[in-house]
């Protein structure tokens, strides 16, 4: 389903991407003015050289059990697929930080994101992300919703998301959240809006 040359191409870009991800994670910042509950008041990181763009990351917060929209600047790549990868790497940067509001296991990575047809995004994570993910209905759903909603908010036209682990289908993320089916981005957005409404 995935063209081989794309995988190779992405491998070449990986080092650069990881370096950029490091910057991204330093830059994640101010909360955006969106409908979702906003609380992050950390100072905005100083601008860095090179073209960047402002995006909205939907970040999971375990303490409140909801997503919060945060604006961040990520490197400006060319295509939709590369853009999707930058977005999720920026998001993972937040989760791997020592002050993470929704800690991910050390070594967790999004290996690739593929835009398979105009409306479908496929996220391929490494096994560390899934195997060492905390197990629970809400904690797993927060991860899925954060990934899905971040893609949907920044890549126009994405309406379905499929999540693979090491390129393979898997039943659940860590025993609960269903990975066997496609995620409908609208359903995820509606559900996570309700968490914000009912969260406090």
């Amino acid at each position, binding site marked *: 389903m995935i063209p081989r040359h794309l995988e190779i191409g992405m491998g070449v870009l990986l080092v650069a991407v990881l370096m950029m991800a490091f910057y991204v994670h330093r830059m994640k910042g101010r909360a955006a003015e969106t409908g979702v509950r906003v609380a992050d008041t950390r100072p905005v990181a100083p601008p860095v050289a090179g073209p960047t763009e402002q995006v909205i990351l939907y970040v999971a917060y375990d303490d409140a059990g909801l997503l919060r929209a945060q604006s961040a600047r990520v490197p400006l790549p060319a295509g939709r697929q590369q853009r999707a990868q930058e977005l999720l790497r920026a998001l993972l940067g937040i989760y791997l930080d020592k002050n993470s509001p929704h800690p991910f296991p050390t070594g967790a990575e999004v290996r690739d994101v593929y835009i398979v047809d105009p409306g479908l995004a496929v996220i391929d994570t490494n096994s560390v992300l899934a195997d060492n993910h905390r197990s*629970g209905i809400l904690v797993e759903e927060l991860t899925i919703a954060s990934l899905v909603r971040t893609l949907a908010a920044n890549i126009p036209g994405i309406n379905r998301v499929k999540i693979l682990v090491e390129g393979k289908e898997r039943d659940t993320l860590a025993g609960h959240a269903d990975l066997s089916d496609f995620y409908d981005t609208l359903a995820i957005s509606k559900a996570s809006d309700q968490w914000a409404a009912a969260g406090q």
Partner: protein
Amino acid sequence: MRWISFVLAGCWLLAIPAPTPEEKRISIYSPAADYSLSVTEREGKDYVGLLEILEPLGGVTAKIEGQKWQLRFNDSDAQFTPDSNKARIRGRDVDLTGRFLLENNRGLVPVDSLVTLLPNFLGIPVVFHTTARRLFISEAGTTYKTELKKTTPPKLVLNFSSPVNPTIGTEPGKLTMIFLRDPLVPSGPETVNFNDKAISSATFKENNGAVEVTVNGPVPLLASFSNDGRTITIAPAPSPASSITPAPLAAPPTATPPAPVAGTAPSAPPSPMPAATPRYFAVVDASHGGDERGAALSDKLAEKDVSLAFAQHIGQELGSRGIAALMLRDSDSTLTVDQRASNANSAHPAIYISVHATSEGIGVRVYTALLPSARENRGPFVAWDAAQAPFLSASQTAALRVAAELRKTIAVRILAAPLRPLNNVTSAAIAIEVAPQTGDLADLTSSNYQQLVASSIVTALAAVRDQLESSR
């Protein structure tokens, strides 16, 4: 280096999660009422509250006068003295088998003294099945007959002399029926062998205030009621493969929920299975189990054990209110989500409840299925993935009521979750994820907390019972 082995063995033993001790119960059967009470252990002896025993049988009051606990039952007076082995009932001395205890104004008597105490109050003899703690007051009991019908598939028919309402649990290799409030009396051999491939044997055992009937067979078994609750028919359940795959394929594009599969094979003669729908109100599903441990709640505590304990409390609570329930997992067995959905759907309950536990956060989360917002036609399997859709509003009704009841004592949230098998269930369906009440992990293994959550859930479900029944 033998001491190392001992230390390691000790660590290994410590690492095994302590089994949740089954609550000890006594059941009383009388023409006035059939009821079941919990038994308290004191100094290695079983005790029970005397007031609770007498309450369903007549008018009873108690007060403390001086050093004595004064009891009045109908027109009989009795005096009990704390720490004394003697009581006085209607002016006569009665010996107790242990000391009378007064705890917070609650009078406790040894369970095995009831056989002498009660005739003195009631003026009639009682029959006490001591080991099983089942007490019959002027009650002949319900008898049963078993018959294996060698049809295809075979059916085990149990006929009872009066209607019964057991809690039914299934697990690989057996189907268990617990008769807690039915005055069932042993009416045949303890074990009956049927010499049949699908239904090999049945055992009838009295234990812990109940009669436990276990039907053994290598294939999953399913029970259905008929004859106003006087007949239970046990037959092999339709296999998950046959109930999952063909039903959606055969379904029209309008996502009709998979039909019950029993006896629907085109070439089969009309099924002699009782036409009556099984009377289960609820299917209770303890999540995870067997090799699949669920979340590691601590180094020693696996989610599968905690979810089972909460589910068992819910099942017991339903049973004690006379509401029929099917327990999908009643031991440490492995079930796939497809098996859970298939077994639940075959039972046609009014509500399906999946039980999970977590160490993260506090309180209880109540979930309904997260379904795609727009139902696209994505091929023949859509119906199975979204089989829940026609029942979602009934599920939300149940979730709201359960949350409202829990909220009286516990922090609650309602959410939608992509959690199988919720989306495959063809009835109202909710999942609960229980976190500690106060943030202390020990809450999850506390019998009080388990009971609080269970009774709140069952109170809520009983309150919306009519609505749920009408959504079937």
